[in-house]
């Protein structure tokens, strides 16, 4: 197709560099355009001072929580292993600062449940040995594939886009499969959030080294960084830097939510469709977030475990929307304080973006590996509108990026007809919320879809 276009009579033949990378692409099916509200896009990443106390929850990764190695009263150093991921899908946890273990107790986490956590009284920032805490950039690509994966595993890396799947597991390509592309997610399609944007602008070179290391780990000859064109500075910056790295290119994408969804991103960046119920490797792709790529750089080149991440703090009426480099375990209220304090009218605090984030039950909840942003909403924007009857406008079907019929699935779920839910492919739902965002009758479609997915999933498991 590309060749055909270039050879049309009357058109000049473009030089070879004019390839598909300079054209905007996107996923084809569905999608919505929520207002972007990237208030903190110009705010450079600031390091947040160490808090007095850190609360480090044990279950920060998808899969099995790691096994606790410390006890009350232990002195720990920054970067010291606190809990070891022993199961196949699990991830290590390290001390985000040096200090004394005050207690091991249950603490509220973003889900609103109390879960086991390590409370550390911070005394300072004294690191364990072997960690390079200097600021010089290291680009040693001679590390072996096995070493890269081992260091990622030791560093306790998980997907920082929010899914928190252990990164070392993702780097192990299953037998018989071949990774052709490493697709890097710099889309940040959630409104308000800017942490990935700032990371791409400020830590571009480290990011690209991290990507090169991941390419080596999975034996992928090419990496494509997908970035929506509402971040032209990041596209330009990484395009310039990537010319020094072999096999890495930047694909500019049309702005459309949920482009950061794994399957949507693959469709947009390499035009392949991941089959229903399968992983990206099925079409030769491994997807990872830019934040994760940066963490890979730090883990492999600097031996630094994942103990801090960039978190956007933003929202209605906030004095100084910011991007902070925060130690894991820092309380959300400290972040809000640093961004100018909680506005009086705040009625909702969201961990993540407005489309998929979780509403918090309290601001005294620790930042975890999967926290990409803290969003504050004023009371006028916090409550749902009163739902009316479905008017069968089919807008939910039109915007569904998976080609589902949300109105039907919601109804079947409401009626507890879960076998029919399965036939109508409810398990394909990625819970992006586009249906509910667009519903003119204000129906809580995604609430019913989530419930239906849960119940249908149980049904499928009991059958096996």
């Amino acid at each position, binding site marked *: 197709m590309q060749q055909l276009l270039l050879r049309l009579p009357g058109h000049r033949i473009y030089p070879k560099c004019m390839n598909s990378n300079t054209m905007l692409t996107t996923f084809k*099916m569905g999608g*919505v355009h*929520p207002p972007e509200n990237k208030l903190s896009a110009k705010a450079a990443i600031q390091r947040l001072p160490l808090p007095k106390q850190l609360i480090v929850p044990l279950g920060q990764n998808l899969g099995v929580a790691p096994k606790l190695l410390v006890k009350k009263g232990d002195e720990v150093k920054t970067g010291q292993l606190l809990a070891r991921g022993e199961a196949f899908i699990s991830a290590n946890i390290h001390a985000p600062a040096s200090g004394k273990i005050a207690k091991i107790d249950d603490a509220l986490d973003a889900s609103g449940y109390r879960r086991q956590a390590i409370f550390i009284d911070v005394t300072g920032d004294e690191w364990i040995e072997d960690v390079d805490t200097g600021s010089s950039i290291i680009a040693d690509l001679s590390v072996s594939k096995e070493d890269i994966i081992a260091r990622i595993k030791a560093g306790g890396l998980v997907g920082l886009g929010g899914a928190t799947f252990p990164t070392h597991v993702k780097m192990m390509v299953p037998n018989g499969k071949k990774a052709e592309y490493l697709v890097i997610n710099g889309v940040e399609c959630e*409104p308000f959030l800017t942490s990935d944007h700032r990371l791409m602008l400020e830590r571009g070179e480290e990011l690209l080294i991290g990507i090169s290391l991941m390419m080596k780990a999975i034996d992928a000859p090419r990496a494509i960084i997908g970035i929506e064109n509402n971040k032209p500075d990041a596209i330009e910056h990484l395009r310039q830097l990537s010319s020094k790295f072999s096999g890495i290119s930047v694909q500019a994408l049309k702005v459309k939510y949920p482009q950061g969804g794994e*399957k949507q991103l693959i469709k947009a960046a390499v035009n392949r*469709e*991941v*089959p*229903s*119920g*399968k992983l990206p490797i099925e079409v030769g792709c491994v997807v990872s977030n830019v934040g994760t790529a940066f963490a890979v750089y730090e883990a492999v080149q600097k031996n630094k475990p994942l103990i801090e991440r960039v978190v956007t703090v933003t929202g209605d009426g906030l004095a100084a929307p910011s991007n902070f480099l925060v130690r894991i375990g820092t309380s959300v209220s400290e972040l809000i304080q640093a961004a100018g304090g*909680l506005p009086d009218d705040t*009625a*909702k*605090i*969201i961990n*993540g973006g*407005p*489309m*998929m*984030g*979780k*509403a*918090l*039950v*309290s601001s005294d909840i620790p930042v975890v590996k999967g926290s990409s942003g803290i*969003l504050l*909403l004023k*009371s006028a*924007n*916090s*409550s*749902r*509108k009163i739902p*009316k*009857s479905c*008017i*069968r*406008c*089919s*807008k939910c079907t039109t915007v*569904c*990026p*998976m*080609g*589902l*019929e949300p*109105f039907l699935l919601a109804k079947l779920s409401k009626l507890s007809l879960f076998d029919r839910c399965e036939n109508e*492919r409810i398990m*394909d739902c990625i*819970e992006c919320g586009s249906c*509910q*965002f*667009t*519903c*003119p*009758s204000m129906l*809580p479609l*995604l*609430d019913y879809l989530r419930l239906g997915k849960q119940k249908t999933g149980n049904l499928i498991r009991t059958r096996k």
Partner: protein
Amino acid sequence: MSKLIVSGSPHVHGDESVKSIMFTVVLAMVPAMLVSVYFFGFNALRVLLIAVASAVFFEWVIQKYIIKGPLTINDGSAIVAGILLGFNVPSGVPAWMLIAGSLVMIGVAKMSFGGLGKNPFNPALVGRVFMLISFPVEMTSWPVPKPLFASAITDAITGPTALGLMKEGVAAGKTVEQMLASGEMPQYMERFIGQMGGSLGEISALALLLGGLYMVWKKVIDWQIPVAILLTVAAIAGIMHLVDPQHYVEPVFHLFSGGLMLGAVFMATDMVSSPMNMNGKIVYGIGIGLITIIIRLWGAYPEGISFAILIMNALTPLINNAFKPKRFGLVRK
């Protein structure tokens, strides 16, 4: 700090609401309303006002005293239904008949099923067909259009529509050519602008198309349904015209006559009673087009779009089951 609100994602919502959709539809009907007032004068205004007022009133009474549910008239759907009913009747129809039609539309076709979103049939069409069958004389006496500022035309007389004339003429043994040349028939340009006998809203294809384009642009309707209807009608009419031009008039005549354009743009596209997936919408449109042209060419009535839409409304649930959207990542076995 007061208590925090906790709810599932998404935490933002788009601008669109049922009310905004209904408002868009009303706005899309403005050109056709203006044309009807221009050609039929005060009577058109009278019909529209009575239809809208009675529709809103009946919905309010039924919701308040029979269903005893929350107020629904402010969502604007009763206003849309009222205007559509007005569009579907001749301007000379007596007020009490219109009010009876409105009661059937709101009371029987809409509220008895539970109100907006639950009605299987297009309420305005149910009201219209009820009136057509109950009051056939009044419902087929179409005042001849008399432009507001034109003084030449003398008395307001009534006459049949172009479709009716053609059907009667051909049945009486005249050829299409004779009928078109007879002078009773409105010219093409007149039909396109709306200077011809007919129900209020159906006379001007131009005004209806403008409204349709506006609704497509605003994403309130999908173009598939009207286009499928019009193409099907044009195709069958075209084939018949080629086979026997003496008895079958050319397709353009069909496209711009009668209620086809009104039906295709505003009635068949009713969200509640039409299919929800793209392929289903096309099948639905083709079905409406087929039934319409069959009734027009060989049925007892000169016009068939109302019946066609109601019949296809009945098939909508089956169409929804048969035609699913294209699923992402579905591997064909």
